Every structure is written in structure tokens, then in C-alpha cells.
């Protein structure tokens, strides 16, 4: 049977993808199916709209090692569309599956719809400088970033089938030393105000200037990729950009941030953007509502004093 298939190694992402799957189902008149490794979640998927759930019987397998299993299943079930949760693991799996199926794959699609016999998708290009619309031939594989869709409304009345699939994972890669990345549990995407720091800060000790401003206005601290990944001054969960967090606070105050496109793509939904930078030509001013050209080390303490209640 042809169908629309959803796969994610993360149950929450699979549930979100069912929303996109239900839209495609309405347009394509094809059944909606989920491929999962978690048998315990099968009923939930059915309540959310899946007609059939394929449970891969591969306990504790490394998800990336299941690509061939997913590809074989998609082929034998003649899947028209395979939506894969766009986690890093998911993107790895999706690319292998697409290759094995000789199918097109759109990475990180923000929108997916069916029209004129092909899928139409929207995604970012050049690190967010542009939006690109593509068509993808059927069968198509698409990865969708986590949290792009909200879960459908469940209904306990829905019925569906559950089928077990024997899965032989790829054992060529041995996994060891799995270490959780230390997390402070801060969710900067939920903050209404952010004071964000960039490479304009010369030393880690100088970050207190931003912290004091943040405290004065009730903001969280965020940063650029360089500050988190090159300098390691702040945890990666605080970094904003194409490969980091996307934020939409009421106020985003960028201190010592030049405003490269890879960063700005993560802040473009902010209500107000304010920039402090010594370089008048820094691209951040093009992205800002208000700005000060000046020495951040001089400006930030003054701004803290001026905005302190």
C-alpha cells in the first residue's frame, strides 16, 4: 500500500510530524503510517491519526544503524512520502534512506504541501539569507525540524493496526562513552528579553557587564556561536543562530555582535532588536530597530544604570 510515513527516534517529534502527515493525507488521499522503535507509543500514534504503526523490533539499537531497515520498509510498503524528524540523528538516517531509495530529500523543511503530483517545500538557503521553494519528486523524503508543528488533537476513538517488523541494525559502528551534555536547563527560547553577547567581549570576565544589564531589565543571557563553541564561555544551549536556538523575545539586545547572517536568522522573529557595537558598518545595525555605535565597555554600564528601576 502506498502511504505517508512518519519516522523519528524521538516520540515527541514523531507526534508533531503527524500534524504535517495529516495535512498530506488529506491532499494525497493516502493512509498515514508511523515507523517507530517504541511499541509502547503505538496507541498514542493511532489516537493522533496514524492508521498503521510499524514497530521495529530492534531493542536498544543505535538509531542511525536502522537506516537500511527504514529504507527496506519504505520500499516494500511503497511509501510516497517519508517525513523524518529533523534531529541530528534523524537527518543522518534520512540521508541514508533517501540514498538507498534513490529519492530526493529536502532537509529542514519549514513547510510541506502536496500539489500537482509533487511535494512543495520551503527551506532556508545561505544560512537564512534567503527562502527557497523546492519541488520534490515522489517518493520523497523530507526532514522537518523539531517543534515546527504542534501535535494533533488526539481522539481515543481512532482505530489502527500495529505491525511488528524484524529489524537487523547495522553493526559496523560500535558506540561507547555516551555522555549527556551538561545542561543548565535554561530555555532562552521562552525568555521575553535577551541580552546577547558576541565576540566584541575581549575576556570572559567582561561578561558581567552583560549580566548586570540583563539583571537590571529582567533578561536572560544568550550569545553567538563563537562565544559558546569557540570560546566555551557559555553553554551551547544559550547560543543563537542557524545551528543553534531560534528566539522570538520582545526585546533582543545584541552587545558586541557583528550580525552575520548565520546569527541574525535566529533572531529575526524578535519584536525589537537593539544593537550596541563599535563598528558603524556592522551588519547588526541593518537588523536592528535601535542601536548605539560606541564602545560597549562604556555603553553597557551606562545603559544598565539608565534602565535600572
Amino acid at each position: 500500500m502506498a502511504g505517508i510515513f512518519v519516522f523519528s527516534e524521538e516520540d515527541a517529534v514523531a507526534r508533531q510530524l503527524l500534524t504535517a502527515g495529516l495535512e498530506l493525507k488529506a491532499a494525497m488521499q493516502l493512509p498515514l503510517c508511523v515507523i517507530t522503535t517504541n511499541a509502547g507509543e503505538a496507541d498514542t500514534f493511532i489516537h493522533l491519526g496514524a492508521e498503521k504503526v510499524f514497530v521495529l523490533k530492534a531493542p536498544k539499537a543505535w538509531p542511525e544503524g536502522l537506516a537500511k531497515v527504514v529504507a527496506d520498509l519504505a520500499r516494500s510498503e511503497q511509501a510516497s512520502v517519508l517525513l523524518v524528524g529533523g534531529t541530528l540523528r534523524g537527518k543522518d538516517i534520512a540521508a541514508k534512506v533517501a540514498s538507498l531509495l534513490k529519492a530526493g530529500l529536502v532537509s529542514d523543511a519549514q513547510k510541506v504541501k502536496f500539489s500537482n503530483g509533487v511535494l512543495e517545500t520551503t527551506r532556508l538557503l545561505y544560512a537564512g539569507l534567503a527562502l527557497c521553494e523546492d519541488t520534490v519528486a515522489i517518493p520523497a523524503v523530507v526532514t522537518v525540524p523539531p517543534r515546527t508543528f504542534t501535535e494533533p488533537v488526539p481522539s481515543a476513538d481512532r482505530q489502527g493496526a500495529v505491525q511488528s517488523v524484524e529489524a537487523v541494525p547495522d553493526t559496523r559502528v560500535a558506540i561507547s562513552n555516551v555522555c549527556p551534555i551538561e545542561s543548565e536547563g535554561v530555555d532562552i527560547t521562552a525568555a521575553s528579553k535577551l541580552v546577547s553577547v558576541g565576540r566584541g567581549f575581549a575576556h570572559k570576565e567582561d561578561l558581567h557587564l552583560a549580566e548586570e544589564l540583563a539583571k537590571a531589565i529582567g533578561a536572560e543571557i544568550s550569545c553567538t556561536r563563537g562565544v559558546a563553541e569557540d570560546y566555551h564561555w557559555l553553554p551551547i544551549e544559550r547560543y543563537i543562530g542557524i545551528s543553534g536556538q531560534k528566539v522570538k523575545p520582545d526585546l533582543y539586545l545584541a552587545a558586541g555582535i557583528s550580525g552575520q547572517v548565520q546569527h541574525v536568522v535566529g533572531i529575526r522573529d524578535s519584536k525589537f532588536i537593539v544593537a550596541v557595537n563599535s563598528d558603524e558598518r556592522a551588519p547588526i545595525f541593518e537588523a536592528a530597530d535601535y542601536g548605539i555605535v560606541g564602545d560597549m565597555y562604556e555603553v553597557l554600564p551606562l545603559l544598565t544604570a539608565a534602565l535600572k528601576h
Partner: protein
Amino acid sequence: MPKILVCYKWVLDEQDIKINPADLSLDPSRAKGKISDFDRNAIEEATLLVEKLGGTVDALTYGTSTVKQSLKDVLSRGPNKVFWVADASAEKADAHVIANVLAAAIRKIGQYDLILCGEGSSDSYNQQIAPRLAALLDLPAITYVQEISASGNGFSATRKLTDCTEVATVQGPAVISVLGEINKPRIPSLKQVLAAAKKPSEEIKIADLGLTPEDLVPKVICISVKGFVMTRKNVVYKDGDAAAKVAKLADSLKKEGLC
């Protein structure tokens, strides 16, 4: 001593692509070519590995005729030899086509112990090439890697995922994609630039790769590209002393109800 192949893409420098305000089309006329950012990390990592372990590094690229501009650049960064496929098909190639061409070229050139790629390109950032190559060449893939070391007959690589790191180990050849944080690519010295001119480069004709016409037909076709334009107020205080500018900004923020 490993024989390493590093794949790279020659892309436009996105920082110099302008958006035409009239129709939101992209204006690349001022943008120069560059080796895609994370591919530079892959080239550096290959070079660091052979400096430590011995062996050789070859580079491989596929693009339009502009890839010729990349040859000296890539050779100045460490590789001993570069193979290049220049063909008009690259203009509209999706990851399916690119991986087909690279995989066919690799089969033609010969066996490698390690194939390195950047995690994604600076232009389309599809993050597909390493896992696609692995699937086409029937090799294991290790993606999103921040550290690589030799291990037995193969390699150990530390992957960095969203919520954890993990060490992936393979025996025998593998395809690995690296993150930008794995190293800091060196800036080629004058000596390296001069030496690059003497290193070999070899063109591979796409017709000699044994690909079917279908292998070169993209499955993903771009139908529209529009620059993303933000409408912002762009009120910038640049005159006067710091205190005066801060007073103006504080005033503006209060009027917007932000502070």
C-alpha cells in the same frame, strides 16, 4: 598509514550576496567563491591526521566550471592532490546528484581508508553528502564529529549531538562528517601557496564515471529563491558622547514600552 579523501564544495561567500530590494532576488555579483566553511575543517582535519599518522590526503570536488578556481586554494591547505569534476549539471544538482557523482568518482579513483566531509555546505546546508556517500559506497557513516583518532584498523570519532556526545568506532574504511568546532583551519602560508602550484590536479570527466542519465537528474528542484528582508526601524545613535547616546536609547526603549 591512512589514505584519506576529503570532499569539498566551492560555494559563493554568502556574506557578500546582496538582496535586490525591488524583487527580493539575490545579487551574487559581488560574492566571491570560497571553499565551504565546514569543508575547510574537513581539509584541516585530514591534514592534521596525516601529520600525526603519516599517509596521504587527496581532495575531490564537483561543481560547475568555477571549481577550477578552487584547486590552488585547496592544495595550499594540505592535500597532496586534487580530483575535480566540472560539469554544467552541478548548477542544478541536488544532494542526490552530487552524491551520485562523488561516489562514482571515488569508485574510479580507488580505495580510501577514510572519506571526510564537512557536516553541511555554507550555501544549501543540506547535511546529506556524508551519509549519502556512505550508503552509496556501502561504508559506515559517522556524522557530526568533533574529534577523530585512529583505532585498530579504523577510526574512533566523538560525535556531538543535541543532548549528548558519543564515541563511534569503526574497523575498516568509513565516511566521517566533521563539525566546525573540530579544529581551526590554518591560513595557508606563502610557502604552502607556492607549493600548491606544483601539486597535481586531475580532471575527471563526468562522462567517464559510468553514470546513467537518470543519476544526474535532480529529484529536488528549486522553483523560487527569495531574499529574506526584515523591516526594522534602523534608528542608530552614533553622535555625541556615550551618556548622550544611552539617554536617547533608554528614552526610545521606554517609549516602546520595553523597559
